[in-house]
């Protein structure tokens, strides 16, 4: 019964966006010059980061599914079909994600725009490119969840791994703090990791922080990460399948 959960998530989303609104407002007021962007842009970034986090929550289903299968042992059935599972999960999860966008993302966006000074993208071009960047962002999120789920397949179901993933994601994606705030060392780490493809890059495009050239190369980077991670998913899955057949189930 997703009903209570659904409404609670909407409420929670609003609270979190509201919190972000205040957080960045307060911080901006203190030292506006540190930010290289306008207040409106910063607040929008902060709130959208939270919103996107909530919407992308739907891709966690992939991880939960894999972990559940491992726990109940039903993973054996999945392992007998090497390629089908990946596409099957992707198809199903895409549906869940679309649902999430429509029921959480859009209302949240509208609520933010109406009550919390959420600004539209700085230009139509940016807006369109932003929407475009959501696709690889989702694929990266999907693939990462799949890989984390696969860790459970290999090493037993450990809940903590999910939390570790979530913490790293929240930080290195730029959700908690914009990436350009990071000191050099952390910034370097963040740029090497795929997490920023999920939130950092799309939002940078949205608020117009990147030039056209930078945007296009960022999109390219996203696409590369998405492809690489999906390939990694396929490889780990085939490996697991091979392992199973060698061991004789």
């Amino acid at each position: 019964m997703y009903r209570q959960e659904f409404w609670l998530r909407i409420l929670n989303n609003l609270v979190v966006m509201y919190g972000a609104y205040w957080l960045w407002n307060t911080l901006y007021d203190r030292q506006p010059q540190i930010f290289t962007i306008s207040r409106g842009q910063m607040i929008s970034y902060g709130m959208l980061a939270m919103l996107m986090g909530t919407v992308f929550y739907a891709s966690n289903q992939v991880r939960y599914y894999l972990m559940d299968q491992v726990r109940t042992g039903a993973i054996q059935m999945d392992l007998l079909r090497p390629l089908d599972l990946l596409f099957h999960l992707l198809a199903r999860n895409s549906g869940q994600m679309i649902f999430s966008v429509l029921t959480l993302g859009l209302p949240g966006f509208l609520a933010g725009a109406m009550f919390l000074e959420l600004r539209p993208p700085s230009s139509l071009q940016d807006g369109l490119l932003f929407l475009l960047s959501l696709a690889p962002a989702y694929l990266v999120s999907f693939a990462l969840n799949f890989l984390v789920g696969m860790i459970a397949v290999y090493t037993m179901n450990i809940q903590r791994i999910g939390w570790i993933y979530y913490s790293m994601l929240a930080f290195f994606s730029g959700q908690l703090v914009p990436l350009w705030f990071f000191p050099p060392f952390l910034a370097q780490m963040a740029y090497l990791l795929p997490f920023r493809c999920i939130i950092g890059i799309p939002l940078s495009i949205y608020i117009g922080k990147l030039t056209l050239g930078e945007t296009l190369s960022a999109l390219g980077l996203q696409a590369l990460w998405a492809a690489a991670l999906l390939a990694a998913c396929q490889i780990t899955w085939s490996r697991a399948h091979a392992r199973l057949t060698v061991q004789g189930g």
Partner: protein
Amino acid sequence: MPDSLCRGADMDTLRIYFKLVGMALKSMTQFRIDFLVGVVGVIIQNGVNLAAIGVILGRFHDLAGWTVWEIVFLYGIWMVGNSLYSLLFLHLSSLDRYIIEGTFDRFLVRPLNPFLQLLGEDVNLNGIADVIFGLACLGLSITNLRLTFNLLQWAYMVAALLCAALIELGITLFFASTAFWTGRSGALINTVNQVNWNMTQQYPLEMFGRGFRVFVTCFIPVAFLNYYPTRWLLGKITPGDPGYFLSFLPPLVALLLLSAASLVWAKGLRQYTSTGS
């Protein structure tokens, strides 16, 4: 303590609880891997949180009048309270799993309060690593702030930490009990916790607007986990100020939450035996 949770509670019950927990500990076959992952997890998760704080504070030298070490103290208080909760009560959020797997039915066939059995079903040893980390944060911040607490303040801190664990227990139990109706509880609790994490655990409430403050004080009262006690301990609020009394409310909040949670639990249990499948 609320009635339905404590039915039949006495010294004997406590003994049984410890025995159940003993069984749970004995059952930990994956101890070494769990421990390793736990340690790594503590380092990464807390590292990331502190890094976020560090990044912000690196740019802004204080947040709403709170300096770096004061924020670390705030975080430390949250950490210790939360890890005490996660040590003993974390598995309550998996109530849905226990119901689906039939474990809960097993509780009902035994001559013991099912809540007690649920409590004794599991223990999260990783919580110990978290407690240590939290205490380290507290220790460091106390040293760096050159604080000295008198006996009353130490007692207050201990009480506040215990209350924090109980408040989280109350919140979790409240939402977990919905599993009796809906068959799902884990995701719900994660959602609720999102407000907890990333927001109130490390940012003082002064930074947020009134609406948010009201929400985390009156609705999902996570502000009582760390913010109000910290405010009092650090001397940021004096007897004359409005809201001073909030510093002493954690026990009351814990009691109210546990009562509410036990009502939901009892109702849920009745519901389960009426319509459980």
